[in-house]
């Protein structure tokens, strides 16, 4: 298996500022629009996160969607959660990813099944995100989790999630340390609204040696922000942002302005920005412009 670094990895490791964005693969097998969105962005961003049954809502396999992106010349970051796969399925998918040339993997625990559209399903959680990272490390050392030797050794650029604004911060910190010890080379964070808390996070994480890519959430309206606060785990839009949107005559434009403002605010603290456009991928270029200029 090729151990070539991904372009995303090379850039991050060289200390350049990276921009990633999340594009949700379809519920269905028609990936044309998904690929079109990704291709439209590929010139201005470094990699695209392909979500894994995001929010526990069933969609096409992120492995298949990532492979399609790669074929179209777009660099994917494969998101892999522990919610829907046991350790056999996770290792199979990781080997499959490596065989298809996918190198960037974001190791996640996964949102609880009760948030999604298959509430009656059984959740797996055979592994957690730390154990998933350990598993990737083991595969990259040429053996599976039971110690059996692999035919061909995969190599990954492993990342992990972080929630810098979650309290108590010390409680989250020991898990972040375990993630880096288990091989996480970068963190992609939840949506950042408070640059003070982000600075606290960066100060704690920088000595660990992992890169930080700060999450920027694109909001469309005050109603959407309220919906997110109620229904999406790990995302919390502060009241003053909700109010700013509610007071605006053009909420979508204000949402974009807020995202651009936050992206500029966080830039000096971090190694990159991760844009979560929540279905409005067409305005990502404007956020990228705000970051670059």
């Amino acid at each position, binding site marked *: 298996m090729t151990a070539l670094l991904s372009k995303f990895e090379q850039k991050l490791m060289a200390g350049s500022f990276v921009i990633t964005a999340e594009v949700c693969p379809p519920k269905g097998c028609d990936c044309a629009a998904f690929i079109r969105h990704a291709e439209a962005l590929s010139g201005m961003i470094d990699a695209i996160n392909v979500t894994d049954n995001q929010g526990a809502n069933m969609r096409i396999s992120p492995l298949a969607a990532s492979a399609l992106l790669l074929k179209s010349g777009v660099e994917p970051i494969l998101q892999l959660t522990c*919610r829907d796969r046991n*350790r056999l399925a996770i290792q199979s998918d990781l080997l499959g990813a490596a065989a298809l040339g996918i190198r960037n993997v974001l190791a*996640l*625990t*996964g*949102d*609880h099944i*009760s*948030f999604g559209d298959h509430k009656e399903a059984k*959740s797996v*959680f*055979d*592994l*957690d*995100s*730390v*154990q998933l990272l*350990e598993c990737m490390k083991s595969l990259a050392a040429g053996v599976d*989790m039971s110690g059996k030797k692999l035919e061909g050794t995969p190599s990954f650029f492993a990342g992990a*999630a*972080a*929630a810098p*604004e*979650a*309290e*108590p911060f*010390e*409680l*989250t910190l*020991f*898990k972040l*340390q*375990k993630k880096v*010890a*288990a091989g996480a080379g970068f963190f992609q964070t*939840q949506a950042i609204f408070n640059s003070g808390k982000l600075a606290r996070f960066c100060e704690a994480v920088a000595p660990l040696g992992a890169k930080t890519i700060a999450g920027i959430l694109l909001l469309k309206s005050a109603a959407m922000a309220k919906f997110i606060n109620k229904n999406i*785990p*790990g995302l*919390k839009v502060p009241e003053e942002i909700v109010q700013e949107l509610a007071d605006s005559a053009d909420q979508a434009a204000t949402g974009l302005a807020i995202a651009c403002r936050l992206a500029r605010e966080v830039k000096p603290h971090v190694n990159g920005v991760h844009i979560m456009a929540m279905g409005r991928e067409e305005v990502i270029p404007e956020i990228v412009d705000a970051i670059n200029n």
Partner: protein
Amino acid sequence: MIISQQKPLADILASLGDSNSVFIVGCAKCATVCKSGGEEEVWQMQEALISSGKSVTGSVIIDEACHMLRVGRDLRGRQQLVDDADASLVMACGAGIQSVSAAIPKKTVAGLDSLFLGNIRRFGQFEQKCSLCGECVLSETAGICPVTACPKGLLNGPCGGMDEGRCEIDAEAECAWAQIFTTVRETGRIANLAESVPPKNYSKIPKPGKLKLK
């Protein structure tokens, strides 16, 4: 104890189907405490079945229904009443129901749903603290079980949905890892927070579970 809850009467009647005469079995232990299959509930069930046009040949409260030998003995003591019935309705946990189905060759109907191994907070209030996972981690987690208290059973710390020490799926519930963290701080109890915990070994709890004392 095993926490159980009575099935809706409509479901019980549907399971009984055309079985017109019924023998009812309750349990003097867990199902009595849960008020799902004790003396009072068995009596109420008898009334409900009669109102629904069934006949009840008799009933017995077994101490305790998961004890297979005792169930066999108690049912033999009421052989005629059991034989006169088309079906037995068991108001005990799944273990108790199967003690009865193993002892009587007739149709057995489940009157309860078995929910979890529970602690009793106060009368009528039960909480799951242990998942019977076969590999107790409590010595390493300040006496609080993340396998059970965390809806995802995470062994290495909180998930990304934790905030203000609350759980992502229930804002009223304290995150298991926040509980562990607070307990360590406040009591000085030991917990392994810094080291990675390996995945659980599920081969320790094969199904069906069996244990034979030597």
